């Protein structure tokens, strides 16, 4: 039997507003523990929340980017539970009246557009950071003591919930890349998983291909990169298939993904079901964004990444278009092509060489880059690499590099090629037995012998010719 994966994601995005959600403490990393706190975010008696207008506007902005409807009235509720990371004993969160509902995101794929439903996007406050010291579980029960840093507590957080519309771990990863790029381009968050400003939980189930049933799902947490999300989902899908095929049943559980081992560990089942006793937050009034505000925010939306992938794809291909757009490289690519560079070559140089050199796209002069792309095949490899690595420097000019021509003279390169092949009889044998990937090895050796001055295209032709001839 073949199994169809059913995957939904819950994504938390920490907003980079200047101040916290309900008080005016600064948001950000790096300050000493518990220094960015006040009576409000420490939950002192009588302290009251005052909502951050920017956070509300950014939530609506992101909702609009995700094609959501913006209800005329949203409401904050209290989610009640005891934990030391929650100083008030409740988290203020939108619950049954979120700011954004019923959206969708278009995910361009090789088989056409996939439409991923966005159930809701709502605004809430982040909890504080806890560290449990001692004990084996890393949890509060059994710890020798726990430390709490309330700096993070009260940071604005948007939770985005997708419909269970994703059908593979790869699709989930591509969705997340596109979503992340959208968030970053809106300027509302840095959305970095490593820093925890973007967090992803996945709800995973499988069903026999062709059926429309929904089987028990499990929840995966603690995956702190897109690759780990994909690997975690992959592992859980395999586990569930094995469970069903063994005749057992998948149980509703929460798993932590261990990046080091790739293993999934079930959290200890809770003794009792969660009951958060939600009720409307009486310290706040409803959020009622005016139609004018929503329209003003809608006008601020840039052309979104999904649409740009589709537009650029026509001049490249889906894979390259996706890499450029989700890497935030497409604007540089457009400019470079406009300066006369060939589209595919420009995409390759930007996605490989420029990114490889660790240069951000913002400071790169497109005109000079276009000249380098155009001259790429004529330049010695080392010269080209050197030039690319300096692209980000102020006032960069390609001129001094363009003067250096690569050695393309077959008479001059021929003997070098012969020497390299003679010195590598084993590899030559392997190549002739079909291991054609070794071509790159031979070209590399020749480039090394010529201190990078040889034209790799010419060398490559010479090597192939010689190996065919003898």
């Amino acid at each position: 039997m073949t199994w169809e994966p059913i995957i939904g994601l819950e994504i938390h995005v920490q907003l980079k507003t200047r101040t916290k959600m309900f008080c005016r403490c600064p948001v950000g990393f790096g300050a000493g523990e518990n220094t960015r706190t006040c009576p409000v975010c420490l939950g002192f008696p009588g302290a009251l929340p005052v909502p951050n207008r920017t956070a509300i506007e950014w939530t609506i902005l992101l909702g609009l980017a995700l094609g959501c409807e913006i209800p005329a009235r949203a409401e904050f509720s209290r989610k009640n539970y005891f934990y030391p990371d929650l100083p008030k004993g409740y988290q203020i969160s939108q619950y049954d009246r979120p700011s954004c509902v019923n959206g969708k995101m278009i995910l361009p794929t090789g088989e056409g557009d996939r439409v991923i439903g966005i159930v809701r996007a709502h605004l809430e406050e982040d909890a504080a950071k806890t560290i449990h010291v001692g004990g084996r579980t890393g949890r509060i029960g059994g710890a020798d003591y726990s430390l709490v840093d309330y700096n993070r507590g009260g940071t604005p957080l948007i939770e985005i919930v997708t419909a269970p519309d994703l059908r593979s771990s790869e699709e989930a990863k591509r969705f997340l890349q596109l979503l992340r790029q959208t968030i970053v381009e809106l300027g509302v968050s840095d959305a970095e998983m490593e820093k925890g400003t973007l967090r992803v939980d996945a709800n995973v189930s499988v069903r026999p291909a062709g059926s429309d049933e929904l089987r028990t799902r499990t929840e995966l947490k603690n995956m702190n990169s897109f690759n780990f999300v994909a690997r975690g989902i992959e592992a859980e899908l395999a586990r569930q298939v094995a469970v069903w095929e063994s005749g057992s049943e998948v149980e509703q559980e929460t798993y932590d993904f261990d990046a080091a081992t790739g293993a999934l560990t079930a959290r200890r089942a809770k003794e009792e079901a969660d009951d958060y006793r939600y009720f409307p937050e009486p310290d706040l009034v409803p959020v009622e964004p005016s139609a004018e505000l929503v329209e003003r925010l809608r006008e601020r939306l840039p052309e979104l990444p999904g649409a740009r992938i589709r537009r650029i794809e026509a001049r490249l291909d889906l894979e390259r278009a996706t890499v450029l757009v989700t890497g935030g490289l497409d604007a540089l690519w457009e400019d470079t092509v406009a300066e006369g560079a060939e589209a595919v070559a420009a995409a390759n140089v930007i996605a490989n060489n420029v990114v490889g050199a660790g240069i951000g796209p913002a400071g790169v002069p497109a005109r000079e880059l276009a000249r380098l792309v155009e001259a790429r095949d004529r330049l010695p490899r080392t010269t080209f690499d050197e030039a690319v690595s300096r692209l980000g420097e102020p006032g960069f000019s390609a001129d001094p590099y363009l003067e250096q021509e690569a050695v393309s003279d077959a008479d001059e390169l021929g003997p070098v090629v012969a020497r390299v092949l003679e010195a590598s009889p084993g590899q030559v044998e392997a190549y002739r037995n079909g291991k054609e990937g070794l071509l790159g090895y031979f070209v590399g050796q020749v480039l090394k012998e010529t201190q990078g001055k040889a034209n790799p295209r010419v060398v490559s032709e010479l090597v192939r010719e010689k190996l065919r001839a003898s």
Partner: protein
Amino acid sequence: MAPVVDTLRLTAEDAQGLLERKEVSPAELRAAYLEAISERDGELHCFLRTTDKVAEQGVPVALKDVISTKGVETTAGSRILSGYVPVFDATVAARVKGAGLALLGKTNTDEFAMGSSTENSAFGPSRNPWDPTRVPGGSGGGSAAAVSAGLAPWALGSDTGGSIKQPSALCGNVGLRPTYGTVSRYGIVAFASSLDQIGPVAKTVRDVALLYSIVAGRDPADSTTAELPEPVRLPTADSLDGVRIGVPTELNEAEGIEPGVREAVRRALELSEQLGAVVEECSLPRSVRYGLPCYYLIAPAEASSNLARYDGVRYGPRAEGSSYQETVDRTRDEGFGDEPKRRIMLGTYALSAGYYDAFYGQAQKVRTLIIEEHREALARFDVLACPTSPTVAFPIGERAADPLAMYASDLLTIPSCLAGLPGLSIPCGLSEGLPVGLQLIGPQFGENRVFEVAHALEQALAFDTVPERLR
């Protein structure tokens, strides 16, 4: 040195006059009140603590101990906050200081303002200055008793279901619960956020209006506050010509209203007519029938959440246990008294999955009906009138063991609290030698109208606010 003023009779307005004309110095005035406190508070226990030195040079003021005062311990009458010293002033504390009022001290309250007698204070009950064997009402019994006993010219209290109005009635002075949202709750130790309101207690309606004008108005730190539609006016009226007073049958004939209370209110209404008012019966059928149950779902539900922050982690005493959970359990078990525990349990239940719709959700719908009912009545009348409390001050201990009897003390004050409307209690006579309060309920933001009506009646009633045994 004999006190330079008679604090038992001095109104805040008169005190202000004495200071302005430099007939007494701020230090002399303060000393007079501190002396009254040292003389009478041993018996009455109105104050949980007095303040040593303050910079402000104006009329002294007492604040209920649910109001955060920077640098001055604020306990809300609970062991779980004993030793807690706020690092910030509640907005109302800042506003009274900003107006130059000098903090005298913090007054006793039922724990977390939960109660109608101050017997739930973790630090012992206050006593009624008219009869120290009786309660001063609650939860703001400390503030009300202090004003009547001349220990403070005026005070601020907090009112959730009657905690300003009912003690004022039982102690024979004037107390205002303002329109919800006109006075900031920032820095008030929360009981039930959608009901809590801060308001003044004083000997006269004008003093109440004056203190209200100092604390009222929008506060950016409290999102639920609103700007007053018109400035507060100190009342001057001595006639009630053209004033329409509605007398809700259900609030005037409810079971449990003592005959002496009914009689005093009836005479006050007759007097109103003599002063030119049109007095007519009207009806608030759902308010009495459902008000109390509705309140005792909503208020404990919100309280169960508001009191969740007291876990011993960040402030207040901590009872160490062997784990986080045990520490929180022990801290809360030792820190909270019976009444907060009872309400936390009630409220947790009312909000629980499977019960929410039947209890909290239903109570909110009933509350909407009660709001509607009041709005309709107040479209026909300028104010509604009824007794503030069904009874006069009751003996200490009488209802302490019977929560339902205690809850019934607020039967008549609760409906307008649920409706978010201003309610003022003025003394309208005595029953068995104890004060009876008349409650006047106005429309939203109708404080000025209520002050005018109450002031005219107050002049005509000429009630002596000084307890007979202290005259």
